Protein backbone atom coordinates (compact mmCIF):
# COMPACT_ATOMS: atom_id res chain seq x y z
CA UNK A 1 0.00 0.00 0.00
CA UNK A 2 1.13 3.52 -0.64
CA UNK A 3 1.83 6.25 1.90
CA UNK A 4 -0.17 9.39 1.09
CA UNK A 5 2.21 11.58 -0.95
CA UNK A 6 -0.26 14.49 -1.36
CA UNK A 7 -0.89 17.78 0.45
CA UNK A 8 -4.22 16.74 1.94
CA UNK A 9 -4.79 14.58 5.00
CA UNK A 10 -6.56 11.20 4.81
CA UNK A 11 -8.51 9.83 7.79
CA UNK A 12 -10.57 6.63 8.00
CA UNK A 13 -13.01 5.28 10.53
CA UNK A 14 -13.31 1.56 10.98
CA UNK A 15 -15.29 -0.83 13.11
CA UNK A 16 -17.44 -3.92 13.11
CA UNK A 17 -20.87 -3.80 11.47
CA UNK A 18 -23.09 -2.07 14.02
CA UNK A 19 -20.28 -0.07 15.61
CA UNK A 20 -21.65 3.19 14.22
CA UNK A 21 -18.47 4.22 12.40
CA UNK A 22 -20.63 6.14 9.92
CA UNK A 23 -22.14 8.31 12.66
CA UNK A 24 -18.76 9.17 14.16
CA UNK A 25 -17.29 9.91 10.71
CA UNK A 26 -20.18 12.20 9.74
CA UNK A 27 -20.03 13.94 13.11
CA UNK A 28 -16.35 14.70 12.57
CA UNK A 29 -17.03 15.90 9.00
CA UNK A 30 -19.70 18.31 10.25
CA UNK A 31 -17.49 19.70 12.99
CA UNK A 32 -14.57 20.22 10.60
CA UNK A 33 -16.82 21.89 8.03
CA UNK A 34 -18.27 24.17 10.74
CA UNK A 35 -14.71 25.26 11.51
CA UNK A 36 -14.18 26.02 7.80
CA UNK A 37 -11.74 23.23 7.08
CA UNK A 38 -11.95 21.92 3.50
CA UNK A 39 -13.35 18.45 4.13
CA UNK A 40 -14.62 15.65 1.89
CA UNK A 41 -16.62 12.63 3.05
CA UNK A 42 -16.45 9.21 1.39
CA UNK A 43 -17.61 5.77 2.38
CA UNK A 44 -17.28 2.15 1.40
CA UNK A 45 -19.18 0.72 -0.31
CA UNK A 46 -19.66 3.88 -2.40
CA UNK A 47 -22.86 5.44 -3.70
CA UNK A 48 -21.76 4.57 -7.25
CA UNK A 49 -22.85 1.74 -9.50
CA UNK A 50 -20.56 -0.92 -8.01
CA UNK A 51 -21.12 0.23 -4.43
CA UNK A 52 -24.88 0.02 -4.88
CA UNK A 53 -24.53 -3.41 -6.44
CA UNK A 54 -22.48 -4.61 -3.45
CA UNK A 55 -25.16 -3.38 -1.05
CA UNK A 56 -27.87 -5.04 -3.11
CA UNK A 57 -25.99 -8.34 -3.13
CA UNK A 58 -25.50 -8.27 0.62
CA UNK A 59 -29.09 -7.29 1.26
CA UNK A 60 -30.81 -9.73 -1.09
CA UNK A 61 -28.71 -12.83 -0.71
CA UNK A 62 -27.61 -14.17 2.63
CA UNK A 63 -24.56 -15.99 1.30
CA UNK A 64 -22.45 -13.79 -0.93
CA UNK A 65 -19.25 -15.27 -2.31
CA UNK A 66 -16.52 -13.53 -0.27
CA UNK A 67 -14.21 -13.80 -3.27
CA UNK A 68 -16.55 -11.93 -5.62
CA UNK A 69 -17.11 -9.42 -2.84
CA UNK A 70 -13.39 -8.80 -2.43
CA UNK A 71 -12.91 -8.01 -6.12
CA UNK A 72 -16.00 -5.79 -6.18
CA UNK A 73 -14.93 -3.84 -3.09
CA UNK A 74 -11.46 -3.37 -4.59
CA UNK A 75 -12.97 -2.19 -7.90
CA UNK A 76 -15.26 0.22 -6.05
CA UNK A 77 -12.26 1.45 -4.04
CA UNK A 78 -10.19 1.97 -7.19
CA UNK A 79 -12.89 4.25 -8.61
CA UNK A 80 -13.24 6.30 -5.42
CA UNK A 81 -9.47 6.66 -5.15
CA UNK A 82 -9.17 7.93 -8.71
CA UNK A 83 -12.30 10.07 -8.84
CA UNK A 84 -12.58 11.52 -5.35
CA UNK A 85 -9.91 10.74 -2.79
CA UNK A 86 -6.73 11.47 -4.75
CA UNK A 87 -8.08 14.65 -6.43
CA UNK A 88 -9.21 15.97 -3.00
CA UNK A 89 -5.87 15.12 -1.39
CA UNK A 90 -4.08 16.88 -4.23
CA UNK A 91 -6.13 19.99 -3.49
CA UNK A 92 -5.01 19.85 0.14
CA UNK A 93 -8.36 18.81 1.62
CA UNK A 94 -9.08 16.58 4.58
CA UNK A 95 -10.68 13.35 3.36
CA UNK A 96 -12.76 11.44 5.90
CA UNK A 97 -13.73 7.91 4.91
CA UNK A 98 -16.20 5.63 6.63
CA UNK A 99 -14.34 2.34 6.10
CA UNK A 100 -11.39 1.78 3.79
CA UNK A 101 -9.16 -1.08 2.69
CA UNK A 102 -8.76 -2.22 6.34
CA UNK A 103 -12.34 -3.51 6.12
CA UNK A 104 -11.35 -5.77 3.23
CA UNK A 105 -8.49 -7.13 5.29
CA UNK A 106 -10.50 -7.67 8.45
CA UNK A 107 -13.61 -9.12 6.82
CA UNK A 108 -11.99 -11.30 4.16
CA UNK A 109 -9.31 -12.64 6.51
CA UNK A 110 -12.05 -15.01 7.66
CA UNK A 111 -11.65 -16.79 4.33
CA UNK A 112 -8.34 -15.87 2.70
CA UNK A 113 -4.75 -15.29 3.84
CA UNK A 114 -4.29 -11.67 4.87
CA UNK A 115 -1.16 -11.36 2.69
CA UNK A 116 -3.11 -12.18 -0.42
CA UNK A 117 -5.69 -9.51 0.41
CA UNK A 118 -2.86 -7.04 1.00
CA UNK A 119 -1.52 -7.94 -2.44
CA UNK A 120 -4.88 -7.21 -4.11
CA UNK A 121 -5.03 -3.81 -2.40
CA UNK A 122 -1.38 -2.87 -2.69
CA UNK A 123 -1.78 0.02 -5.12
CA UNK A 124 -4.14 2.01 -2.89
CA UNK A 125 -3.25 5.04 -0.77
CA UNK A 126 -3.30 4.22 2.92
CA UNK A 127 -5.09 6.62 5.31
CA UNK A 128 -2.65 8.77 7.30
CA UNK A 129 -4.55 7.73 10.38
CA UNK A 130 -7.36 5.32 11.16
CA UNK A 131 -9.68 5.38 14.16
CA UNK A 132 -11.18 2.09 15.21
CA UNK A 133 -14.50 2.31 17.06
CA UNK A 134 -14.11 0.16 20.12
CA UNK A 135 -17.37 -1.70 20.70
CA UNK A 136 -17.60 -5.37 21.68
CA UNK A 137 -19.06 -7.85 19.17
CA UNK A 138 -21.91 -8.31 21.62
CA UNK A 139 -22.79 -4.58 21.59
CA UNK A 140 -22.46 -4.41 17.79
CA UNK A 141 -24.70 -7.41 17.29
CA UNK A 142 -27.27 -5.77 19.58
CA UNK A 143 -27.13 -2.49 17.56
CA UNK A 144 -27.62 -4.35 14.28
CA UNK A 145 -30.76 -6.05 15.53
CA UNK A 146 -32.16 -2.71 16.72
CA UNK A 147 -31.83 -0.93 13.38
CA UNK A 148 -33.74 -2.37 10.45
CA UNK A 149 -32.38 -0.44 7.51
CA UNK A 150 -28.70 -1.10 8.13
CA UNK A 151 -27.10 -3.34 5.49
CA UNK A 152 -24.62 -5.62 7.19
CA UNK A 153 -22.51 -8.53 6.09
CA UNK A 154 -22.34 -10.36 9.40
CA UNK A 155 -24.55 -9.92 12.40
CA UNK A 156 -23.82 -12.84 14.66
CA UNK A 157 -21.57 -12.31 17.62
CA UNK A 158 -19.29 -15.19 16.68
CA UNK A 159 -18.67 -13.92 13.13
CA UNK A 160 -18.11 -10.39 14.44
CA UNK A 161 -15.58 -11.76 16.94
CA UNK A 162 -13.62 -13.28 14.06
CA UNK A 163 -13.68 -9.97 12.19
CA UNK A 164 -12.42 -8.26 15.32
CA UNK A 165 -9.43 -10.59 15.35
CA UNK A 166 -8.64 -9.38 11.84
CA UNK A 167 -8.67 -5.79 13.11
CA UNK A 168 -6.39 -6.80 16.01
CA UNK A 169 -3.89 -8.10 13.47
CA UNK A 170 -3.98 -4.79 11.56
CA UNK A 171 -3.66 -2.81 14.78
CA UNK A 172 -0.52 -4.73 15.79
CA UNK A 173 1.03 -4.51 12.35
CA UNK A 174 0.16 -0.87 11.62
CA UNK A 175 0.10 0.57 15.14
CA UNK A 176 1.75 3.82 13.98
CA UNK A 177 -1.39 4.83 12.08
CA UNK A 178 -4.15 2.97 13.89
CA UNK A 179 -5.88 4.33 17.02
CA UNK A 180 -8.79 3.15 19.09
CA UNK A 181 -11.61 5.46 20.15
CA UNK A 182 -14.52 5.19 22.51
CA UNK A 183 -17.81 5.87 20.66
CA UNK A 184 -19.30 7.40 23.84
CA UNK A 185 -16.64 9.99 24.25
CA UNK A 186 -14.60 11.40 21.39
CA UNK A 187 -14.81 15.11 22.18
CA UNK A 188 -11.07 15.70 21.66
CA UNK A 189 -11.00 13.85 18.37
CA UNK A 190 -11.56 16.78 16.02
CA UNK A 191 -8.87 18.85 17.71
CA UNK A 192 -6.54 15.89 17.43
CA UNK A 193 -7.27 15.40 13.73
CA UNK A 194 -6.62 19.11 13.05
CA UNK A 195 -3.34 18.94 14.96
CA UNK A 196 -2.26 15.85 13.05
CA UNK A 197 -3.25 17.35 9.71
CA UNK A 198 -1.14 20.43 10.47
CA UNK A 199 1.81 18.21 11.36
CA UNK A 200 1.39 16.44 8.01
CA UNK A 201 4.40 17.81 6.19
CA UNK A 202 2.61 19.14 3.12
CA UNK A 203 -0.72 20.26 4.61
CA UNK A 204 -1.50 23.84 3.45
CA UNK A 205 -1.00 26.53 6.11
CA UNK A 206 -3.99 28.72 6.89
Amino acid sequence: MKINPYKGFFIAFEGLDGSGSDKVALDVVKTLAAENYPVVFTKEPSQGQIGRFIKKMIKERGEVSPLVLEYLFAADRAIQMEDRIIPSLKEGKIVISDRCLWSSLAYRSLYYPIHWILEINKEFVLPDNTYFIDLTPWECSKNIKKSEDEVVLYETESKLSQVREGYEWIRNKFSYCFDIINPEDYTDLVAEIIARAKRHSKFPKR
Partner: protein
Amino acid sequence: MRPLPENPYPGFFIDIEGLDGSGATTQVALIKETLKKEGCNVYTTKEPTDNVIGGMIRGALTGVYKLPPPALQLLFVADRIHHLSRQIIPILQNHNILITDRFLWSTIAFGSVNLNKNWLVELHHYCFIPDLSIFLRVSPKICVERIKADRFDFELFEEEKKMWKVWDTYEWLVKKFPNKILVIDGEQSQEKISSEIFKKIKNHPKFMRMYRNEISKQ
Protein backbone atom coordinates in the same frame (compact mmCIF):
# COMPACT_ATOMS: atom_id res chain seq x y z
CA MET B 1 5.49 -15.76 -9.23
CA ARG B 2 3.45 -18.48 -7.54
CA PRO B 3 1.97 -21.13 -9.83
CA LEU B 4 -1.77 -20.88 -10.48
CA PRO B 5 -4.11 -23.75 -9.58
CA GLU B 6 -5.14 -26.23 -12.29
CA ASN B 7 -8.62 -27.45 -13.21
CA PRO B 8 -9.55 -29.94 -10.47
CA TYR B 9 -12.71 -31.23 -12.26
CA PRO B 10 -13.13 -34.19 -14.61
CA GLY B 11 -14.40 -32.12 -17.59
CA PHE B 12 -12.06 -30.78 -20.27
CA PHE B 13 -11.70 -26.99 -20.20
CA ILE B 14 -10.48 -25.22 -23.36
CA ASP B 15 -9.87 -21.50 -23.78
CA ILE B 16 -9.43 -19.69 -27.12
CA GLU B 17 -7.51 -16.43 -26.77
CA GLY B 18 -6.22 -13.67 -28.97
CA LEU B 19 -6.32 -10.00 -29.80
CA ASP B 20 -9.62 -8.42 -30.80
CA GLY B 21 -10.10 -9.37 -34.44
CA SER B 22 -7.98 -12.52 -34.13
CA GLY B 23 -10.93 -14.76 -34.95
CA ALA B 24 -11.26 -16.42 -31.53
CA THR B 25 -15.06 -16.20 -31.50
CA THR B 26 -15.30 -17.82 -34.94
CA GLN B 27 -12.99 -20.63 -33.86
CA VAL B 28 -14.98 -21.38 -30.72
CA ALA B 29 -18.05 -22.01 -32.91
CA LEU B 30 -16.14 -24.09 -35.47
CA ILE B 31 -14.48 -26.29 -32.83
CA LYS B 32 -17.79 -26.84 -31.11
CA GLU B 33 -19.28 -28.19 -34.35
CA THR B 34 -16.30 -30.43 -34.99
CA LEU B 35 -16.39 -31.90 -31.50
CA LYS B 36 -20.16 -32.40 -31.69
CA LYS B 37 -19.77 -34.36 -34.91
CA GLU B 38 -17.30 -36.55 -33.07
CA GLY B 39 -19.96 -37.30 -30.49
CA CYS B 40 -18.56 -35.22 -27.61
CA ASN B 41 -20.70 -33.40 -25.06
CA VAL B 42 -19.54 -29.88 -25.68
CA TYR B 43 -20.60 -26.50 -24.35
CA THR B 44 -19.39 -23.00 -25.12
CA THR B 45 -19.26 -19.80 -23.10
CA LYS B 46 -17.61 -16.39 -23.24
CA GLU B 47 -16.26 -13.52 -21.19
CA PRO B 48 -17.34 -10.99 -20.18
CA THR B 49 -20.54 -12.84 -19.26
CA ASP B 50 -24.12 -11.66 -19.68
CA ASN B 51 -24.75 -11.11 -15.96
CA VAL B 52 -24.79 -7.80 -14.08
CA ILE B 53 -21.03 -7.51 -13.64
CA GLY B 54 -20.49 -8.42 -17.30
CA GLY B 55 -22.87 -5.61 -18.20
CA MET B 56 -20.86 -3.09 -16.16
CA ILE B 57 -17.71 -4.22 -18.00
CA ARG B 58 -19.33 -3.80 -21.41
CA GLY B 59 -20.47 -0.32 -20.45
CA ALA B 60 -16.84 0.62 -19.82
CA LEU B 61 -15.50 -1.15 -22.93
CA THR B 62 -17.97 0.58 -25.22
CA GLY B 63 -17.25 3.96 -23.68
CA VAL B 64 -20.61 4.56 -21.97
CA TYR B 65 -18.53 5.55 -18.93
CA LYS B 66 -14.88 5.49 -17.94
CA LEU B 67 -13.38 3.21 -15.29
CA PRO B 68 -9.84 3.44 -13.88
CA PRO B 69 -7.77 0.50 -15.26
CA PRO B 70 -7.52 -1.42 -11.96
CA ALA B 71 -11.31 -1.14 -11.43
CA LEU B 72 -12.00 -2.57 -14.89
CA GLN B 73 -9.68 -5.55 -14.39
CA LEU B 74 -11.02 -6.26 -10.87
CA LEU B 75 -14.52 -6.33 -12.36
CA PHE B 76 -13.34 -8.84 -14.96
CA VAL B 77 -12.06 -11.11 -12.17
CA ALA B 78 -15.29 -10.72 -10.15
CA ASP B 79 -17.27 -11.62 -13.28
CA ARG B 80 -14.99 -14.64 -13.80
CA ILE B 81 -15.43 -15.98 -10.26
CA HIS B 82 -19.19 -15.70 -10.65
CA HIS B 83 -18.94 -17.35 -14.08
CA LEU B 84 -16.97 -20.21 -12.54
CA SER B 85 -19.46 -20.98 -9.83
CA ARG B 86 -22.59 -20.53 -11.95
CA GLN B 87 -21.58 -22.13 -15.25
CA ILE B 88 -18.06 -23.40 -15.66
CA ILE B 89 -17.72 -25.63 -12.58
CA PRO B 90 -21.14 -27.35 -12.96
CA ILE B 91 -20.37 -28.15 -16.63
CA LEU B 92 -16.90 -29.48 -15.80
CA GLN B 93 -18.18 -31.50 -12.86
CA ASN B 94 -20.39 -33.41 -15.29
CA HIS B 95 -17.51 -34.66 -17.47
CA ASN B 96 -18.26 -32.33 -20.39
CA ILE B 97 -16.04 -30.35 -22.70
CA LEU B 98 -16.29 -26.59 -22.23
CA ILE B 99 -14.81 -24.11 -24.69
CA THR B 100 -14.60 -20.50 -23.56
CA ASP B 101 -14.12 -17.45 -25.74
CA ARG B 102 -11.55 -15.73 -23.44
CA PHE B 103 -10.62 -16.38 -19.81
CA LEU B 104 -8.00 -15.22 -17.29
CA TRP B 105 -5.26 -14.77 -19.90
CA SER B 106 -7.27 -11.94 -21.44
CA THR B 107 -7.31 -10.03 -18.15
CA ILE B 108 -3.55 -10.40 -17.83
CA ALA B 109 -2.77 -9.57 -21.47
CA PHE B 110 -5.22 -6.68 -21.93
CA GLY B 111 -4.78 -5.38 -18.38
CA SER B 112 -1.00 -5.20 -18.85
CA VAL B 113 -1.43 -2.18 -21.12
CA ASN B 114 -1.80 -0.09 -17.92
CA LEU B 115 -1.05 -2.43 -15.00
CA ASN B 116 1.68 -4.68 -13.64
CA LYS B 117 1.28 -8.15 -15.14
CA ASN B 118 2.51 -10.00 -12.05
CA TRP B 119 -0.21 -8.31 -10.01
CA LEU B 120 -2.78 -9.39 -12.60
CA VAL B 121 -1.54 -12.99 -12.31
CA GLU B 122 -1.69 -12.83 -8.51
CA LEU B 123 -5.33 -11.67 -8.66
CA HIS B 124 -6.16 -15.14 -10.00
CA HIS B 125 -4.82 -17.14 -7.13
CA TYR B 126 -8.28 -18.50 -6.30
CA CYS B 127 -9.21 -19.11 -9.92
CA PHE B 128 -7.90 -22.04 -12.00
CA ILE B 129 -6.33 -22.24 -15.42
CA PRO B 130 -7.90 -24.12 -18.36
CA ASP B 131 -6.50 -27.52 -19.32
CA LEU B 132 -5.67 -26.20 -22.77
CA SER B 133 -5.45 -22.60 -23.96
CA ILE B 134 -4.87 -21.58 -27.56
CA PHE B 135 -3.34 -18.23 -28.42
CA LEU B 136 -4.35 -17.36 -31.97
CA ARG B 137 -1.34 -15.41 -33.14
CA VAL B 138 -2.43 -12.67 -35.55
CA SER B 139 -0.37 -9.51 -35.97
CA PRO B 140 -2.01 -6.34 -34.67
CA LYS B 141 -1.78 -4.86 -38.16
CA ILE B 142 -4.02 -7.58 -39.58
CA CYS B 143 -6.38 -7.44 -36.56
CA VAL B 144 -6.93 -3.72 -37.07
CA GLU B 145 -7.69 -4.22 -40.77
CA ARG B 146 -10.17 -6.99 -39.98
CA ILE B 147 -11.93 -4.87 -37.36
CA LYS B 148 -12.20 -1.89 -39.69
CA ALA B 149 -13.78 -4.10 -42.38
CA ASP B 150 -16.20 -5.83 -40.01
CA ARG B 151 -17.41 -3.44 -37.39
CA PHE B 152 -18.69 0.05 -37.15
CA ASP B 153 -17.79 0.84 -33.53
CA PHE B 154 -14.21 0.67 -32.44
CA GLU B 155 -13.90 -0.70 -28.92
CA LEU B 156 -11.53 0.51 -26.27
CA PHE B 157 -8.69 -1.93 -26.86
CA GLU B 158 -8.83 -1.90 -30.55
CA GLU B 159 -5.97 0.39 -31.26
CA GLU B 160 -2.89 -0.99 -32.85
CA LYS B 161 -0.34 0.47 -30.44
CA LYS B 162 -1.99 -1.04 -27.40
CA MET B 163 -2.42 -4.28 -29.31
CA TRP B 164 1.33 -4.70 -29.58
CA LYS B 165 1.63 -4.48 -25.81
CA VAL B 166 -1.17 -7.07 -25.41
CA TRP B 167 0.58 -9.29 -27.94
CA ASP B 168 3.86 -9.04 -25.99
CA THR B 169 2.12 -10.14 -22.80
CA TYR B 170 0.49 -13.09 -24.55
CA GLU B 171 3.96 -14.13 -25.72
CA TRP B 172 5.25 -13.72 -22.14
CA LEU B 173 2.40 -15.91 -20.85
CA VAL B 174 3.13 -18.58 -23.47
CA LYS B 175 6.67 -18.76 -22.08
CA LYS B 176 5.59 -18.63 -18.42
CA PHE B 177 2.94 -21.35 -18.82
CA PRO B 178 4.46 -23.83 -21.26
CA ASN B 179 2.20 -26.79 -22.19
CA LYS B 180 -0.78 -24.80 -20.90
CA ILE B 181 -0.94 -22.17 -23.62
CA LEU B 182 -0.22 -23.29 -27.18
CA VAL B 183 0.27 -20.93 -30.11
CA ILE B 184 -1.47 -21.35 -33.45
CA ASP B 185 -0.87 -19.17 -36.48
CA GLY B 186 -4.15 -17.29 -36.78
CA GLU B 187 -3.30 -15.74 -40.15
CA GLN B 188 -4.10 -18.97 -42.01
CA SER B 189 -7.52 -19.92 -43.41
CA GLN B 190 -10.30 -20.58 -40.87
CA GLU B 191 -10.43 -24.26 -41.86
CA LYS B 192 -6.69 -24.68 -41.42
CA ILE B 193 -6.79 -23.01 -38.00
CA SER B 194 -9.66 -25.10 -36.72
CA SER B 195 -8.10 -28.33 -37.92
CA GLU B 196 -4.90 -27.41 -36.08
CA ILE B 197 -6.83 -26.62 -32.92
CA PHE B 198 -8.70 -29.91 -33.24
CA LYS B 199 -5.38 -31.75 -33.53
CA LYS B 200 -4.15 -30.14 -30.29
CA ILE B 201 -7.35 -31.12 -28.54
CA LYS B 202 -7.22 -34.72 -29.79
CA ASN B 203 -3.65 -35.12 -28.60
CA HIS B 204 -4.28 -33.70 -25.15
CA PRO B 205 -3.86 -36.38 -22.45
CA LYS B 206 -7.06 -35.38 -20.69
CA PHE B 207 -9.09 -35.59 -23.89
CA MET B 208 -7.55 -38.96 -24.70
CA ARG B 209 -8.54 -40.27 -21.28
CA MET B 210 -12.11 -39.01 -21.70
CA TYR B 211 -12.75 -40.26 -25.24
CA ARG B 212 -10.44 -43.25 -25.62
CA ASN B 213 -11.54 -45.39 -28.61
CA GLU B 214 -14.40 -43.08 -29.48
CA ILE B 215 -12.74 -40.57 -31.73
CA SER B 216 -11.89 -41.70 -35.22
CA LYS B 217 -8.22 -41.39 -36.12
CA GLN B 218 -7.78 -38.68 -38.72
